[in-house]
């Protein structure tokens, strides 16, 4: 999997799958526009270290996904670098777990705003840049909860399901412009949030249902995203790739 000479935009780079994808993409040779919400010193130093280790450019882009003007500014910053854009990984997102009767409208609107509306808006801008490049690859992060359902995650799952429809539709709309559009659907992934639950055995019932009998790592999702960004997946488009260790 090679991303040498490619310039990719990755959102949600400060933690979890986004952070792992930034590392995997840089390791594969890509220059990365690393999109995050707030500037943090330890992130800046991690970026500097990764840049020198991989001999690539990593350009942090700070903006707030809940604010349209902020998104527009971020795109302007990316444009000002005058680099052709070859890839976009839409990873930023939030959960908003609550049982169905307890869902509050303001919370629901917030989760949809962050996980869907804002990212559509951002992607619209990036697609224009990609069309100028002559093509590219977009990878969206859905979830197996969007396909299988998960109690307590009506809102989150619905936002992630919206990416399945978007992925398939965009593949059809943008394919003729040589832009491939795919999604990954991660299963149970070890993250800061789930690690304690896993260690305490609170996820045992879920893990028992996984063929590989373990949770996945963020790096394993990142590798799939890098594969879909790279030319190794040159004829793959409109697909939803489950990365779930096998759930029957």
């Amino acid at each position, binding site marked *: 999997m090679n991303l040498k000479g490619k310039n990719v935009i990755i959102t949600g780079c400060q933690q979890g799958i986004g952070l792992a994808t930034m590392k995997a993409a840089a390791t594969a040779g890509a220059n990365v526009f690393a999109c995050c919400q707030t500037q943090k010193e330890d992130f800046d130093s991690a970026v500097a270290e990764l840049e020198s280790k991989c001999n690539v450019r990593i350009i942090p882009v700070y903006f707030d996904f809940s604010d349209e003007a902020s998104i527009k500014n971020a795109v302007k910053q990316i444009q000002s670098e005058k680099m052709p854009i070859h890839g976009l990984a839409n990873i930023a997102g939030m959960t908003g777990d609550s049982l169905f009767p307890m869902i509050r409208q303001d919370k629901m609107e917030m989760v949809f705003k962050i996980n869907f509306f804002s990212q559509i808006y951002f992607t619209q801008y990036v697609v224009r840049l990609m069309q100028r490049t002559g093509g590219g690859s977009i990878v969206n992060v859905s979830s197996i909860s969007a396909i299988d359902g998960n109690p307590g995650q009506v809102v989150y799952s619905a936002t992630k399901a919206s990416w399945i429809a978007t992925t398939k539709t965009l593949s*059809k709309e*943008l394919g003729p412009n040589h832009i491939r559009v795919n999604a990954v659907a991660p299963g149970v992934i070890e993250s800061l949030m789930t690690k304690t639950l896993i260690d305490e055995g609170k996820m045992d019932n879920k893990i028992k249902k996984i063929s590989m*009998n373990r949770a996945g790592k963020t790096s*394993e999702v990142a*590798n*799939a995203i890098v594969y879909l960004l790279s030319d190794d997946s040159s004829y793959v488009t*409109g697909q939803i790739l489950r990365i779930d260790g096998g759930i029957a």
Partner: protein
Amino acid sequence: MLMGKTALITGTRRGIGKEILEQFAMNGANIWAHARVETPEFVDYCNSLSKKYSVKVTPLCFELTDSEAMKAAVKIIMKSKEPIDILVNNAGVTYNALFQMSTEAQLREEFETNFFAVYKLTQYISKLMVRQKNGSIINISSTAALDANPGKSVYGSTKAALICMSRVIAVELGNSGVRCNCVAPGVTNTDMLESMPQAVVQEAVDNTDLKRLGEPQDIAKAVVYLASDKASYITGQVLRVDGGLVR
């Protein structure tokens, strides 16, 4: 991506299999290259790949539908004492006939090669993989297994059978470190296309999002990815490599 791994790939003389063979060699794998009949050209080709990529490509020629021959071939692999990390079940034959015109003889023959032989070979090889607690199996299915294509009731059924088999293998052997996935190529530029009228091929191209045929390299690269440790948490999946074939 496959440095230090050993793979068995079936049907490597031409088409998609030949390209998988080359891509695997390029990525550093040692390979048992299966073909039905051993010809000097095939042996030469394997040798040239070995030299070009500094790997070991060993021809392993037998008729997949001959169970004695298969057993003997598996013995050769076992005798080598080398672990077998990857199995790619690529060999297959196509058959086009409308449902009401398909003959029982053809139906049986197609299942013999495209499914029964694959099932048996995978049983043998997966036993070795379970013993070493590691392995990746890739079955080459087809979009014809997932979509309803006129004339493909027989071929599509054999390829659909592979999908069910793969998913069950993923569940049964996941705990033993064996992953199993399918690649489902769409309309791909190989000899198999010659059996299809030009107009049908053009229509298929128009029906893809990318407006082109798949090339064997496109399919081979997907197989390399799923076979590699980069796909370490992917199992039981069917990856369509079809350029976005409109269904």
